[in-house]
């Protein structure tokens, strides 16, 4: 890795002490009594905490905790374009997503890597349809999301947090955006997976003689009042039938739950301000 002259550098090659263990140990999805590792049922989402107005200098900001997954978002704008030569009759939205270096089990780099760039794009594409871009011509709104701890469903947390921060900033929107993740493995569908459930490892007891197990992760962004999906990301192997019927509906149901929480929060803000 080239030496980064702007930061204090450690030795060139370092490794996580548990790197072999983390990548090798298979994960059990269900305990003996049928509940997941953290005691939830397959359909249950984790308890959530949301707060707006956490960053004083930002126009809008929000903080979300989904059990251990923590994300914080700041929204600046509308402000003038970064590059003055660009001209646009519609407003512009930029999005930056970053995992904090200490947020994942294996330490991440300080510069944005490919996965973070991909997530930034997804955030941008999922939040743009909800924002009334024509209301701030020639201006840009910047959304910065950072995940402080990743215990699964980081992208959903980021999407929900981003939309909440936009609302806190007073940016005009068509609708809120809520997001949820679903993990599918063989016949089990798990809502709001934690990091160990999201990982690529095969759960114990898999028979390799049968056809390979269907395993995939689906993240859905949803606009509840308009009943539209601005974003959907699916990774892994899932048959079309499975994806269509089971997962989308479940993800949407879960999103509705989240919306209730969000609406309560915003009402609270309106009353207190």
């Amino acid at each position, binding site marked *: 890795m080239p030496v980064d002259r702007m930061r204090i550098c450690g*030795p060139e090659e370092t490794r996580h002490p548990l790197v072999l263990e983390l990548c090798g140990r298979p994960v059990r999805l269900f305990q003996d009594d049928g509940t997941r590792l953290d005691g939830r049922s397959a359909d249950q989402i984790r308890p959530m905490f949301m707060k707006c107005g956490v960053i004083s200098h930002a126009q809008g900001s929000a903080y979300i905790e989904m059990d251990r997954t923590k994300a914080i978002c700041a929204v600046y704008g509308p402000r003038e374009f970064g590059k003055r030569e660009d001209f646009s009759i519609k407003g512009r939205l930029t999005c930056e997503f970053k995992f904090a270096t200490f947020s994942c089990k294996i330490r991440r780099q300080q510069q944005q890597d490919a996965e973070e760039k991909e997530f930034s794009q997804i955030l941008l594409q999922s939040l743009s349809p909800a924002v009334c871009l024509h209301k701030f011509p020639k201006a840009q709104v910047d959304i910065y999301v950072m995940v402080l701890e990743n215990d699964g469903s980081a992208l959903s947390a980021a999407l929900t947090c981003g939309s909440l921060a936009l609302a806190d900033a007073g940016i005009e929107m068509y609708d809120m955006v809520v997001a949820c993740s679903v993990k599918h493995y063989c016949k089990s569908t798990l809502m709001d997976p934690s990091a160990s459930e999201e990982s690529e490892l095969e759960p114990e007891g898999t028979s390799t003689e049968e056809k390979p197990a269907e395993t995939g992760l689906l993240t859905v962004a949803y606009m509840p009042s308009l009943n539209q999906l601005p974003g959907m990301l699916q990774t892994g192997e899932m048959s079309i039938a499975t994806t269509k019927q089971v997962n989308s509906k479940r993800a949407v149901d879960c999103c509705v739950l989240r919306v209730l929480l969000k609406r309560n929060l915003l009402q609270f803000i309106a009353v207190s301000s």
Partner: protein
Amino acid sequence: MAAQFKRIQLDAYYSKYLQRGRRPDGRALDAFRKTILNVGSIRTADGSALVRLGNTTVVCGVKAELAAPRPDAPTKGYVVPNVELPAMCGPDFRPGPPAELAQVTSQLMLDVVRHSGCVSEERLCVADGELVWVLYCDVVCLAYDGNLADACVVALLAALTNTRLPAVTLDDETKRERVDADVRVPLDVLSYPVATSFAVVDERVLLADPNAEEESLATAVVTVVTLESGQLCIVHKPGGSPIALEEMERCIELSLARAKQIRQLEKETRLSLER
């Protein structure tokens, strides 16, 4: 009316307050903002701390990794502090390479770690010449409202005190490390330095714990780092307008008093966690 006056002539606005010995946010000239400390909330990190100093919020996460030591220092591990000012922390910060303030503060963190002896690099050695710990201490500023240095040092020390390393031994025959993840050894923090910053405004008036506005008006900034023994570790005054020796002595006195408060806060936070 006052808001417009403040916007157009910030220095005159401040002078009117400073003449009466107060600041616009109501503090006395030598008063510090409310400090909140929270440790150990980020479980993916080996040690973590969150500090709120007024509106300035920083999070420090310590990640420990293993590496081969430098050939010229075979018994020493590494401590690698870094301060990040992402674009979210304030309207003046943009995405991209680290800003000057971030680089300067990172270097200050490194100096604090090295010269205070808070973490002994020899104790980070697992096997002489073969395997050492590398502690990556990343401090991320979530909200910037002045006085980054103080908040970062408090966060760094609190995170280091909170750090628990897995027990690692090196097998002499196979030369592979054996890691016992269930046994966690607390890191030995040998001393507890605390930083206190002051801004010089109007070339005479000393303000403790400046916020972002006061920093923008400042003609000089002084940071004093002290240890529990009452000794001075670092005095950082990178140029700016000169200050009298008596003023400097006053800074040091205030720093020592402040340092006691911070250590007390850290102790209370740690004890409440253990309960």
